[in-house]
């Protein structure tokens, strides 16, 4: 199948491309930019006038509770690869489970599914899962999702073991003891509303421990969903030291703060919590400077699980279909150029994963997103393909609408 995407603004952040031209796709790969390869005859042409043509987005964190709906949501949001945390039911701690997930993803044939294997059995933080077996079954790295490892020795051993095989470990830094009872950032809003607080120290203590263990074990670690300015500063220092460390931020944390809890809005409950304005600013700066990748942290939650008092509501928001418009909103507010913003959801996550996709160089896999950067749409339950209708943006108009998504050279949306 040969496809030509015509007249679009082709942005390939990785290779510094930003110009209006045509993109040619053949045999599932990018076959040419501007000039058709010899003998190219298009079977299909996509008119991208007024649209941006860029690498498909790589989402470093998306939960797929109902896999068909969520993978359809992914490609509707321009996301061509999703990293799936292991906190499914049951947790992804056995090779067969990973195998089944990967197969199911291939069968559905929408976005690519990149599972994270459980680092420990049942995510209990005690006994190691079969990491090598999980890797063989298709896991790209190992994680505890947002369940902290309480036992520091278990964490040390897990990192030593992972380092033995050159596996990466993804950790959401949150001290168990300081976060177990909390439901909101410990700050002005939690004090006013009487919500049990999670102090910033929950994050910095965990990062301190992890960084020291990275130094000792050489294990490659990716920190997920940083939430505080102090946390960013610690991660930055460790990266400057040359440690094999990367981190990401959830797109909601770039735009919202504790103040968005308003009168106990359960849609503003996140894990880690939305923090203060200065924290949001620090996360935004980290993303703007290219230090952090951005992900959706897609967490579909049933309506009944949000129609509860704030502290009883499940944390998280739907994210796959709002990743692009929210990234654009952030870029606009933070004064970040479009190619740099797109790098945060394409090449930056590809670098975290050590993958060659996330770019449009000739010969690379044709995972492509075509979107209209000016088109507005209203976030309503019906507008979302995801089963998760939980969003702090319900009712809002967002700008940036995906027109087409290609995965491996096939038009999947």
């Amino acid at each position, binding site marked *: 199948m040969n496809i030509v995407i015509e007249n679009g603004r082709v942005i390939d952040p990785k290779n510094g491309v930003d110009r209006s031209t045509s993109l040619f796709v053949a045999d599932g790969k990018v076959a040419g930019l501007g000039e058709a390869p010899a003998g190219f005859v298009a079977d299909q042409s996509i008119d991208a006038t007024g649209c941006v043509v860029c690498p498909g987005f790589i989402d470093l964190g998306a939960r797929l509770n109902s896999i068909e709906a969520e993978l359809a949501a992914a490609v509707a949001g321009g996301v061509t690869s999703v990293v799936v945390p292991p906190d499914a039911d049951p947790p992804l701690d056995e090779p067969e489970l990973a195998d089944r997930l990967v197969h199911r993803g291939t069968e559905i044939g929408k976005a690519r599914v990149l599972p994270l294997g459980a680092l420990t059995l049942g995510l209990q933080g005690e006994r190691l899962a079969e990491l090598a077996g999980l890797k063989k079954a298709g896991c790209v790295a190992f994680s505890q999702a947002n369940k902290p490892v309480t036992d520091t020795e278990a964490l040390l051993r897990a990192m030593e073991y992972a380092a033995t095989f050159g596996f990466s470990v993804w950790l959401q830094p949150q001290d168990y003891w300081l976060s177990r009872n909390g439901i909101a950032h410990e*700050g002005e809003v939690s004090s006013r509303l009487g*919500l*049990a*607080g999670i102090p910033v120290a929950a994050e910095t203590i965990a990062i301190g421990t992890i960084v020291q263990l990275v130094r000792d074990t050489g294990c490659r670690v990716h920190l997920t969903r940083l939430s505080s300015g102090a946390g960013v500063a610690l991660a930055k220092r460790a990266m400057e030291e040359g440690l094999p460390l990367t981190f990401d931020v959830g797109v909601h944390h770039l735009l919202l703060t504790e103040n968005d809890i308003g*009168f106990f809005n359960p849609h503003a409950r996140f894990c880690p919590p939305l923090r203060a304005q200065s924290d949001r600013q620090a996360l935004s700066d980290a993303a703007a400077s290219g230090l952090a990748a951005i992900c959706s942290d897609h967490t579909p939650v049933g309506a009944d699980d949000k129609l*509860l008092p704030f502290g009883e509501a499940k944390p998280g928001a739907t994210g796959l279909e709002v990743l692009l418009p929210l990234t654009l909103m952030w870029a606009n507010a933070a004064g970040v150029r479009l190619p740099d913003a797109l790098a945060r959801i394409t090449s930056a996550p590809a670098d975290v994963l050590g993958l060659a996709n996330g770019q449009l160089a000739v010969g690379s896999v044709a995972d492509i997103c075509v979107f209209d950067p000016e088109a507005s749409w209203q976030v309503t339950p019906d507008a979302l393909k995801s089963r998760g209708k939980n969003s702090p943006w319900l009712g809002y108009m967002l700008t940036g609408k995906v027109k087409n998504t290609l995965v491996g050279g096939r038009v999947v949306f």
Partner: protein
Amino acid sequence: MYNPQLNKNGELAHLLSIEGLPKSILTQILDTAASFMEVSARDVKKVPLLRGKSVFNLFFENSTRTRTTFEIAAKRLSADVINLDINKSSASKGETLLDTIDNLVAMHANLFVVRHASSGAPYLIAEHLQRIGRDDVHVVNAGDGRHAHPTQGLLDMYTIRHYKKDFTQLRVAIVGDILHSRVARSDIHALTTLGVPEVRAIGPETLLPKHLDKLGVHVYHDMNEGLKDVDVIIMLRLQNERMTGALLPSAGEYFRHYGLTPQKLALAKPDAIVMHPGPMNRGVEIHSAVADGSQAVILPQVTFGIAVRMAVMSIVAGN
């Protein structure tokens, strides 16, 4: 800013929190309560303001005392009162909070008095009622988690106004476990809204929420310093479970530093009043000589509480 407590005309539709209410509404409640004080002194202690209306006491958390005062207040307004102890019924069968509400609305409830362990639960109910278009059904928060206990806050203000007349010259100290106290949060908002120039919070760092200064409160760790020249002392109840964690070493050590003794009370103004939302832990936060002494106004608080709750219910649910 949108305030779910007020209707389109800026009138009180629900009482969820003192925060965000204008001074005029607080004063209206206190004035209305004053007019009800006389009712409680009559032989026939009834006025017909809520005749034919149904008040549901929805207590998801046990509280005999608060529930009783709401029940008495509703009955004096001639309402029908239905007490529901949710711990023992629906919740244990897995029914959600809003399902319970829908069922009771179908039974023609007019007013819900809600006590819930989760901060914000009454907001969820009020927003739900708005969503289903039932602006004729009202919610009064009788205590939600650590967040608010607005009728307690208002009866505290009634008490202070009764004894001190004017709010604008006062120094008020709130002592004890402010972190876990919904009473303290409601008192702080009420005091600052009514124009009290100096509100002090006294307690150890483990029992004080962060950023109290942002609420307009001066923080003291030393009770001897904090009580100096105050006009009003509001003592808070120290829950027994606070002793089990790392918040405090022991009841004895707490009492030595933050218990109100006659010696410490002497640091306040000679005519200072001592308040407590009850139930008291004698020998933990308050010495019996103070609790039973001439400056304590703890029992009058209970009496005023009935009039204040009558005022609140008649304002939100009366026509």
